């Protein structure tokens, strides 16, 4: 693309090094903690997980670089097509996906398990960007009319994902929608309507929850009611984090994770593994890294060249920021446990590739913010 050739010689200086280094340090720390969580495991496949994650990191960085080189505006035109494909994949998952740990979230491609719900997040961001950008042409602020289509666009995949069941990711889609609508401008009465709508949906949703999902919410409210049952994860996670104290037990010395008291230790609860071993000091450092990452991404909402860049940045910041804040709050026991991993840090190829791709898009936006063509 001629765009790239003109950008080529300035590529190095325009590259978003701070964003890249923040993302890289978080994900490499993640690889290290995945190793620490599993090095004492009986199973060789668990012991080798960190290598797989490292491999995914390499693919991720390549993907990120590719996305960074491409003009972010290319995603606008085929966004609806992508959306239809992604929704199709979600339907395929429900029809014949692989079931792992009671949830039907994966599509088998050879020996690989792909999680379409992960890429759905990014595709939804693109589709909403396209719609909001178009709606902006018609009206300054978003009213009910302009919110109806994006709400439907969000609801369809969200319901499909909730059916898997994966409440966490379904929730992430709504958060993306809310953040983008909020940034793009939303009328006060529409905002109030959405909030009221949510308040109606929550109890309706409650009755449609599966028992284990209800129990998780109940367990969050009081985990000690049934320490070996529904509150077990929360309690063990809190014990792991708290027992780390100020300085931590040291790398490889966390007993809660090594002796398997922690559930999902290399995925959803990896933050607890980390917190047990490095204590408050190490946790503070990681949180600073994450907040810097989020603020760096957030900066593009205002400093991008155009609305498309700004809306993409809003969606991506909303996605990664929410993952981070929610995962930490759930491991420290202040929100219900749902399957929301810590971005870049938790084990998982699909999520890692999605996040790197998203970061690549942000880089593309940053590199092109001064151009006038």
């Amino acid at each position, binding site marked *: *693309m*001629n765009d790239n050739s003109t950008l080529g010689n300035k590529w190095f200086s325009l590259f978003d090094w701070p964003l890249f280094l923040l993302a890289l340090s978080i994900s490499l720390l993640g690889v290290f903690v995945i190793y620490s969580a599993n090095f004492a495991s009986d199973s060789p496949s668990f012991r080798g997980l960190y290598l797989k994650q490292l491999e995914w990191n390499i693919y991720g960085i390549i993907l990120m670089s590719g996305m960074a080189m491409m*003009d972010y*505006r*290319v995603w606008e*035109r085929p966004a609806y097509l992508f959306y239809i494909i992604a929704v199709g994949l979600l339907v395929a998952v429900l029809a014949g996906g692989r079931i792992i740990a009671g949830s039907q979230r994966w599509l088998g491609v050879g020996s690989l398990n792909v999680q379409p719900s992960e890429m759905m997040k990014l595709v939804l961001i693109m589709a909403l960007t396209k719609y909001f950008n178009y709606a*902006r042409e018609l009206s*300054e602020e978003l009213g009910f009319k302009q919110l109806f289509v994006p709400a439907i666009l969000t609801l369809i995949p969200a319901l499909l994902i909730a059916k898997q069941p994966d409440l966490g990711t379904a929730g992430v889609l709504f958060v993306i929608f809310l*953040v983008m609508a*909020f*940034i793009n*401008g939303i009328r006060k009465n529409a905002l109030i309507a959405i909030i009221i709508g949510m308040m109606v949906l929550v109890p309706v949703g409650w009755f449609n929850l599966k028992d284990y999902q209800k129990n998780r919410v109940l367990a969050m409210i009081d985990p000690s009611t049934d320490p070996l049952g529904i509150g077990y994860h929360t309690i*063990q996670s*809190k*014990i*792991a*984090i*708290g*027992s*780390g*104290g*100020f300085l931590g037990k040291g790398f490889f010395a966390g*007993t*809660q994770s*090594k*002796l*398997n*008291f922690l559930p999902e230790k290399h995925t959803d609860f990896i933050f607890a593994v980390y*917190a*047990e071993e490095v*204590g*408050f000091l190490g*946790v*503070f450092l990681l*949180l600073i890294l994450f*907040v810097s990452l*989020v*603020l760096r991404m*957030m900066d593009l*909402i*205002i400093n991008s*060249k*155009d*609305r498309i860049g*700004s809306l993409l940045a809003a969606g991506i910041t909303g996605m990664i*920021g929410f993952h981070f*804040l929610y995962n*930490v*709050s759930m491991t*420290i026991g*202040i929100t219900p446990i749902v399957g929301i991993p810590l971005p870049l840090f938790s084990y998982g190829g699909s999520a890692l590739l999605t996040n790197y791709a998203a970061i690549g898009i942000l880089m593309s936006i940053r590199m*092109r913010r001064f*151009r*006038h*063509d």
Partner: protein
Amino acid sequence: MMDFAYGSDEKYFRMVRSRLFIFTGFVLAVFLVLLIRLWYLQVIQGDNLKELAESNRLRQIPLPDYRGTIYDRSGVELVSSRASFNIVVIREDMPDFAAVMGKLATLISFDKEEAMRKIKAQQPFQAYVLAHDISRDDAARLEEHRYELPGVSLDVRPVRSYKYERFSSHLLGYLGEISKDQIGQGFYKDYRKGDFIGKYGIERSFEPLLRGQKGVNIIEVDATGRELKMIKRIPPGVGTDLYLSIDYKAQLAAEQAMEGKNGAAVAINPKTGEILAMVSHPDFNPNEFASGVETEYWRSLLNDPYFPLNNRAIQGVYPPGSTFKFVMAAAGLKEGVIDENTVFHCNGSFRLGRRVYHCWKKSGHGNMTLTHALEQSCDVYFYNVGLRLGVDKIYDMALKFGLSQRTGLGLDHEKAGLIPSSAWKEKYRKEAWIAGETLSVAIGQGYDQVTPIQMARAVAAVANGGWMPNLRLTRLGEHEAATPEALGGQQLGLSQKNASLIKEGLDMVVNSERGTAFWTCRVPHIRVAGKTGTAQVLKMKEGEQNIDQSKLPEKYRDHAWFVAFAPVEDPQIAVAVIVEHGGHGGTAAAPVARAMIAAHLDAMIKAAEAQKAEVPKAGVQRKPVS
């Protein structure tokens, strides 16, 4: 090639600025909440949660303690803790489960199919106890083949062993698993479920002394409970050994003499209050409880009509019968209503108001002084004494003899018995005292109820000439002074003369030809004093003459009492024996007392025999005892 126009939208970005401000504020606020929560968990709650993590990780496996050994006064071992072997199998450690179990079945006998089914039903790393307390031969055989038996190990545990089985079972007691209510209560606060504690007898009373320090293995486990490695081991400690005051020989003699009879026999050292023997029949075998009560045996004991679990020596209450007469003698002498010259005439019956009270001897005893009344157990004499005293004076003296109250020797379930007073009858029966009842009380019938241990201590007071010792179950230490002041006890307030008078009367019971125990309780070379007694089971109706006891069904026959002390010159043993439904005290109970005395004073008898063998040469005759 695609061309894009970067559309700049100033209005859009103006609006975004304010919204982004709110968005950033929201993110930072949540971030702050997370940070505060993490500070709370890791810094404020850190130590608490660290402890929880440790208790997650560490499992404490208590190691049973070794209880102290129980000896008799001369060091004969009565109760000890022996090692028992349990076979423990861990399936995970067996490369070939079926093969190892098969091999095991060739070495020892057990239900292989059932065991394999049960082992498979539990987690592979969980230990399964295949057999409890296997024989030493089996243990040796397993040890020999240990290399062919991976995953099979012997677990050594202490088991209480009562060496002489049924020997003094009520006194020694038994162990049992701690009950739910006891755990964590008072003294038992550091006991756990499954611990064995003394439940009865000495084992219970001396639990704090006998128990050893419990040990513990601290083992790291993972979330599934698999044991990973030993972190620390505190070996169990051994409890304190206990030297009882019991004399094995006297106890054994009593056990043998009581064989086949129901009742109790108690011997004490009158000088120190040490219990020398305590037997209650029927008895039980405490070894049966050593590794948990076998329900069938336990039920058979509970359902036994003769209540073998009752310690009749302290729990059995019986009318004292004529043994009460030495208490009457002491009361009469002390209150001055009689003296050594007082004579009452016995013609076989005694009229009070319109009722006639009989002496056991229908033809009557004739003129009786105190010593002869004791010797021949004349009822009419003591009717007179009783009437002169009145019930409350009798009660006062009985109380001095420790009757109607627990001896407090330190065993559970002791009964107090009862000697009535007019105040007692007023209070509990809401009736005034009737003089005729005093006559029943005077000969140890009616309301009177005593335990064998009370009678042994009372007769010890007579042996001591008026001082009644406190009782004790443990041997008096070598350095402990055996003086009344140091030991504590009770003075009856009898004069020297009066005390000798009663002793003389009891001496005549055994050593005078007219005495009620002349034919049944003399011990060669030892001068014994005693008193027979018959506790009525059937209340005789007015005007009824004595019935021939041997013609009655057993359960209606009288209980036979005998109390005694020896040697008269320097009393070293005081005994009380009751044989339930044994008939006359002299016949049924006195031989038991004689056996105990002879066994306890064995050395003295042998010395006297050796001396006697020299007598013809030396030409010295045995001095008559005054």
